[in-house]
């Protein structure tokens, strides 16, 4: 398994998760915006439910009083001339005035079709009977036809949020209109509540995003740290730490296991210096990486000048993988490395190859076989590849 591929795979999952999370947060936030109108409307309905019920009851009460008058003549004229009756209506309206119910009054239409106040239950801005009333919307006229309560939502009247109109019916005709004006405070209260909800949702989203950022930061730190832990600083190859983790998960049946050692490396260090030795190590590593197959073969520097190679088998045949090693070995012999200006040297390697590491019980055993074969190569004069010849193509 290639560490790059390992991290890439998990990164794909990780970013997929991040994208899903961000999209979910986006949907959540957009959802709250979309629900705003509906929820506010629901809140308003709940908060005005009682006012509507009370207004309907008052209208019925007034209708009942009118019925009990037993008047054959024009009821409107009768009421307009009856201050006692007007006073009783006013007493019915006055108790419903609250902080939110700003005004409650009865309106009638005179013979010219002009709206006028009949009685006013309001404490402030109290209007006298017969004072002219300029209807500000078509609903005032509609109610005379529909004979059903109507709600007017105000966009232009700054002090009021809505007006509830209830028809008072006598002899099957609308004789008065009971008007109940709701203060803008009610809307503002609902807006305030909604603001709190929105801020709450926003705060939750921000907290999630902060945690998300922290998570992303930690993931990247983890990735960087692991990269540093797994990569040999000098050569850029995987190191022993990687081998330790990789051997836990590797399927040895998929690879041939080779152990490679640079011949006479100590001598190179002694003659040319450690800097030259480092150059050789870097160049040999580079050479090996260039000749191994990307995303299939794995190169690990596990010792000073020792390398472990996992060369992937091709459909359980060794031929292709052996060809790789063969190419590495032969071409290395003709390659020269510049260790200092105008100084080129050749290096050779000894390689021990375990063709069937999968046959071993553990990686340790498989490695031991390859290592033993390397030892044979060294003892046999170096610059050799020694295979375990139990099974060969």
């Amino acid at each position, binding site marked *: 398994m290639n560490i790059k591929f390992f991290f890439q795979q998990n990164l794909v999952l990780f970013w997929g998760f991040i994208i899903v999370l961000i999209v979910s947060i986006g949907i959540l936030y957009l959802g709250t915006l979309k629900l705003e109108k509906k929820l506010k409307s629901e809140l308003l309905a709940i908060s005005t439910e009682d006012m509507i019920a009370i207004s309907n009851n008052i209208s019925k009460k007034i209708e009942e009083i009118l019925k009990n008058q037993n008047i054959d003549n024009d009821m409107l004229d009768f009421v307009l001339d009856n201050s006692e009756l007007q006073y009783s209506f006013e007493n019915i309206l006055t108790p419903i005035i609250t902080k939110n119910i700003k005004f409650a009054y009865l309106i009638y239409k005179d013979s010219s079709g002009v709206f006028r106040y009949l009685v006013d239950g309001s404490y402030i801005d109290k209007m006298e009977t017969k004072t002219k009333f300029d209807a*500000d919307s078509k609903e005032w006229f509609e109610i005379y036809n529909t004979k059903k309560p109507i709600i007017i939502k105000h966009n232009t009247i*700054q002090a009021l949020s809505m007006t509830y109109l209830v028809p008072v019916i006598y002899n099957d005709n609308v004789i008065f209109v009971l008007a109940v004006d709701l203060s803008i405070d009610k809307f503002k209260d609902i807006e305030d509540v909604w603001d709190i909800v929105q801020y709450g949702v926003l705060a939750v989203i921000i907290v999630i995003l902060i945690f998300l950022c922290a998570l992303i930061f930690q993931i990247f730190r983890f990735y960087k740290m692991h990269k540093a832990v797994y990569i040999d600083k000098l050569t850029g190859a995987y190191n022993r730490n990687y081998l330790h983790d990789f051997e836990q998960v590797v399927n040895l049946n998929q690879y041939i296991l080779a152990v490679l050692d640079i011949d006479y490396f100590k001598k190179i260090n002694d003659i040319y210096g450690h800097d030259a030795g480092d150059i050789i190590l870097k160049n040999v590593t580079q050479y090996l990486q260039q000749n191994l197959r990307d995303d299939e073969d794995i190169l690990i520097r596990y010792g000073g000048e020792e390398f472990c190679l996992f060369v992937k088998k091709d459909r359980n045949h060794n031929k292709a993988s052996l060809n790789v090693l063969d190419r590495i070995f032969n071409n290395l012999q003709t390659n020269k490395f510049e260790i200092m200006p105008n100084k080129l040297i050749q290096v050779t390697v000894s390689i021990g190859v375990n063709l069937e590491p999968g046959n071993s019980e553990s990686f340790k055993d498989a490695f031991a076989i390859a290592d033993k074969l390397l030892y044979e190569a060294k003892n046999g004069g170096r610059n050799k590849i020694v295979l375990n010849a139990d099974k060969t193509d």
Partner: protein
Amino acid sequence: MAVLMKILILLLTLAYGIYGNNYLFLMEKELNEIELESKIVAKIAQDLVGQNEVKVYLTHYNIEEQEAYKKFINITSHCVEADIIFLKKNKTLDSSCEGLNKIILTNSYQQFVEDDTIIGAFFWAKARPNIVFSKNRLKQNNITLPQSYNQFIEDL
């Protein structure tokens, strides 16, 4: 230009209810009540006098109210110079202003009903603006308002 546009919109809105089916008053959210009142009064004053440049004398209005009115109409501190006198609720005219034969408005409906010298009223009731004129008093003063005002004229 913006002021003219707003007045035009106001005029169109006032003209909207010719047959009395729609009483729509322009309420601009950005204006407070006194500013809106002054805009409407300015329009009414212009239509009463029949010219754009109109001088209005405000009685018993405080400084804040006067400043608001000044944004939309010419205010004069002498009733003699005024084209229109606008009385505050239930306040009476100064003796120095009596007998000048000026057009008098009020912001009290009751005062409008009771005082024959007052030809019209603009008043707030239940947070709504109201306009009313007396047919007879307009006639007596030889004032003809545009048709858009018909819905506001009472047989008084």
